[in-house]
């Protein structure tokens, strides 16, 4: 009988912090600058230079740890990890080794059944430069050398490629909500290595894992992980062992390739960095950071869902800080009772018109949109009319109320007035009334149209339908 395997995935995510200067020196940090124009003596590893930690980077680090519920350690150390690579200016990287500043948090992957993924640790480290490979040489740009990174290591709690991508997206949303990083995979400010292994379902030990490195988009991450799961599944099905290795993903060919066989672990000759006294983060600092944290995506989603917002809409709106802030402002304008209507208008009508442009380019602000939402919710304008109003707001014609009044779009919801029109229209078309009563359902629309037209376009269509049905149903058939 074939053994059923489950995939076990852990992610090591590197997030480049958005600070003015690098982690250990005052060198300016700028993405996309011309090669070697944003370096200083430290970034080049020049002899005689020493590290001094960047306070803002530490503060950002604390913010993330608090946001995902980690324990922030009062005392942690920096350590040197030695290896040889042209983009590593000192021949070692300053990272945190076995004394990271934060351990033990978790984040929730949103969805109908939210999945909790534990975070093992977060630590601070400096980035290396960038290699540009040519045929027989490499060119090195040290602009990025020394940039502050947070490395977030998850427990192997992920069970599918989609979950892994969703975890990455949530992490990205959180760091962007905190304002500590651009977290853009294409730009390289968010990077991910995935550790993938298989084990028989029900087993509690881990299988041999392989590491996929340097994937630069969410989509490719999912594809690469899927490819690796397939590769390992095939091997195990053939009775062959999975050998530890490091893989890259060629997205042009949609294929994994082996970067190195990792039979021997590298000897990094770890050394607690003698140039850096212990990093001390006291409770007062953690508390101060906690006070200033913005509302986080998971909390926002839960709050909105509690107000009746659909799960998918809540996830979408929480994914970008600006959009979430817009929605919160919209809620302030319309009140929590109208949350569901407000969210669906924002998602369907506003985002639909923006076509993936950011909310910042929306010409209709939340207060204005809120005005319109209230008009629709209170049945003052019909849904159809409201869309026209929105188009006109978008074009800058004025506020929704002004437009409604200027174009006479208020609908009548006066039952008595509508009953009078219903009666009049029915009286004008006795033959059609009889046919409708006899079961010719498509005549209903004819009558609704007639009634609305007679009302000068102002009758509330829903109410018209109700009163028409009532009038038709009252008479004996």
């Amino acid at each position, binding site marked *: 009988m074939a053994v059923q395997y489950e995939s076990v995935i852990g992610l090591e995510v590197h997030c480049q912090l958005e*600070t*003015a*200067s690098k982690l250990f020196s*005052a*060198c*300016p*940090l700028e993405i996309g600058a*011309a*090669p*070697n*124009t*944003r*370096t*200083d*003596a430290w970034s*080049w590893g020049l002899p005689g230079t020493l590290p*001094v*930690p*960047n*306070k*803002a*980077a*530490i503060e950002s680090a604390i913010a993330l740890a608090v946001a995902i519920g980690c324990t922030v350690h009062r005392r942690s150390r*920096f350590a040197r990890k030695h290896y*040889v*690579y*042209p983009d590593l200016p000192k021949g070692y990287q300053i990272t945190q080794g076995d004394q990271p500043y934060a351990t033990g948090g978790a984040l929730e992957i949103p969805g109908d059944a939210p999945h909790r993924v534990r975070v093992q640790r977060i630590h601070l480290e400096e980035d290396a430069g960038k*290699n*540009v*490979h*040519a*045929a*027989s*040489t*490499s*060119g*090195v*740009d*040290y602009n990025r050398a020394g940039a502050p990174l947070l490395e977030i290591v998850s427990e192997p709690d992920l069970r599918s490629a989609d979950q892994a991508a969703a975890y990455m997206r949530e992490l990205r949303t959180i760091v962007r909500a905190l304002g500590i990083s651009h977290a853009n995979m294409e730009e390289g400010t968010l990077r991910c290595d995935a550790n993938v292994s298989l084990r028989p379902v029900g087993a509690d030990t881990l299988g041999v894992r392989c590491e996929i490195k340097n994937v630069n988009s969410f989509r490719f991450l999912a594809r690469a992980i899927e490819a690796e799961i397939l590769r390992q599944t095939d091997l195990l099905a053939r009775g062959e062992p999975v050998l530890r290795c490091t893989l890259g993903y060629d997205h042009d060919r949609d294929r994994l390739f082996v970067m*190195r066989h990792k039979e021997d672990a590298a*000897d990094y*000759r770890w050394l*607690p960095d003698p140039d*850096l*006294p*212990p*990093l*001390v983060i006291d409770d007062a600092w953690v508390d101060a950071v906690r006070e200033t944290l913005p509302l986080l995506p998971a909390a926002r989603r839960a709050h909105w869902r509690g107000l009746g917002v659909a799960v998918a809409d809540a996830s979408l709106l929480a994914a970008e800080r600006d959009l979430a802030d817009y929605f919160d402002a919209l809620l302030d304008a319309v009140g929590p009772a109208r949350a569901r209507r407000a969210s669906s208008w924002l998602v369907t009508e506003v985002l639909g018109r923006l076509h993936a442009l950011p909310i910042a380019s929306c010409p209709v602000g939340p207060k204005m949109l809120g005005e319109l939402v209230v008009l629709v919710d209170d049945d003052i304008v019909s849904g159809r009319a409201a869309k026209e109003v929105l188009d006109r707001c978008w074009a800058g014609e004025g506020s929704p109320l002004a437009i409604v009044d200027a174009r006479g779009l208020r609908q009548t919801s006066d039952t008595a007035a509508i009953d009078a029109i219903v009666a009049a229209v029915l009286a004008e078309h006795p033959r059609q009334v009889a046919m409708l009563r006899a079961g010719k359902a498509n005549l209903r629309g004819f009558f609704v149209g007639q009634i609305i037209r007679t009302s000068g376009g102002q009758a509330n269509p829903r109410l018209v339908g109700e009163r028409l049905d009532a009038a038709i149903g009252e008479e004996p058939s």
Partner: protein
Amino acid sequence: MCDPPAASPGSANVATAMALHADEVDALARLAGLTLREDERATLVHQLGDIVQYLAALASVDVEGIAPWQPVAPSRAPLRADIAGAPLPAEEILRGAPVVADGLVIVPRFVES
């Protein structure tokens, strides 16, 4: 042939694994990015062996419960305000590099040994 030293701190194995052998020294050289010249290998192995044996005196000390030394001050790393200074001008810094092209430092293709 000597066995490689065991990893356990305070272990008497430290004292026994003393004479360094040529292949061990070669392995160290590879890690350290050095090649040993034929004419010096034997001398170096011998000298390193003597020194390592001398250093093994540390194995005899009881360090149970003793914390690693830290400088008297500072007890915590001073933190720097996040203010960017001026970068080094690219021409100046690249002038010191042995091989440069298109603003990049050029090296032979890296092949992991």
